């Protein structure tokens, strides 16, 4: 599966997360970025949304960069 399709699936998974507090809390239980990425991949796949751990980790890094650069 190409990277853009995976990013699209991760985005759709994010919409599900924001609409479902239980799912969000499940993800919050992950102890570090690595276990979070693995958990997100599994919970996404259970909902028919396929993406890999690298897609999740890149997205987290991009969000962190956006936050740090918000005044630039």
């Amino acid at each position, binding site marked *: 599966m190409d990277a853009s399709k995976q990013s699209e699936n991760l985005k759709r998974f994010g919409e599900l997360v924001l*609409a479902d507090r239980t799912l969000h809390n499940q993800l919050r239980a992950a102890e570090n970025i690595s276990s979070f990425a693995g958990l997100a991949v599994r919970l996404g796949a259970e909902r028919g949304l396929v993406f890999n751990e690298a897609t*999740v980790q890149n*997205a*987290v890094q991009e969000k962190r960069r956006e936050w740090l650069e918000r*005044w630039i």
Partner: protein
Amino acid sequence: MKDFSGWIPTRIFWRDSRPMVDWAYLGGRRFTDPFFAQTVESCLRHPADLLFHHQTPLEELGEIAATQPGLRPTGFIFHMSRCGSTLTSQMLAALPSNIMLSEVEPIDDILGSHFKHPHVTVEQRAQWLRWLVSVLAWRRSPAEKNVFIKFDCWHVMHLPLLQCAFPDVPWIYQYREPVEVMASAMKQLGRQMIPGVLDARMFGWDAATVGKMSLHEYTARVLAKLCETALIETRAGRGKLLNYQQLPAAAWPALLKHWQVDFSAEEVQRMLNAARMNAKNPVLPFAPDSEAKRKSVPSELRELTERWLDGVYQALEAQRRLQGLD
């Protein structure tokens, strides 16, 4: 409508010419950090919260605030920076009954939005501020009953707009001996002290005027503008002045009376106890530094201070004696 309980607006940004709100999950946290940005930072520490957060059109904030209005603001704190305003806010934050919002970035986004988006009207900014503050002031625990907002130092330039948006909220302007503020500013520059970071139009200048100023002159003149605006507004009878030297014990009862809040003796003592710690780094005890600051100032800075700030400082002192907090 989505459920936003537990969430806070963290930023106003523009997408396709439309103002939007970024949210973060606050959960059970209180605003006890010295600054709002630090609380937001802790909200975004977990990757699940950094990656998955709401983004809504600003208009939707109005619907959310109408559906679930927050507490009415109790008091506002304006200041010239480096003058003990964080001490004041940390004392208030010491009580669970106080929601202390300190230097809130989305407030700054709204106050300055017309500089980047000239079509934004005064009325829109006032309305957006009311929505934003209403949502930030949600009662998140049964103990919460007061809401205080400490603004960024340059927000005093927007006092007329803020008073239009919140006409009944008592406010103070906090200030300090200017040479001590200049010494602190030179030790660690804040955003407001770096030419070009804030929009020069806020101070009635253009970029060319700012370009001719040295770093130190710019700092002195920005501080002078802040104090001059506060002086004009307090002379209009709308706020009270508080000198750093009055903190904490001397001013505290009068300050609480001004904000029309009543605390038990035990609560007052808890707030005064908080003043024993370094406000910006509460793991360290507070150490008086006025004398050291005065001694550390080089002659160039002293001259700039005398030229731009001493006059307005004396005028603030005269005004404070006339109608300030005693």
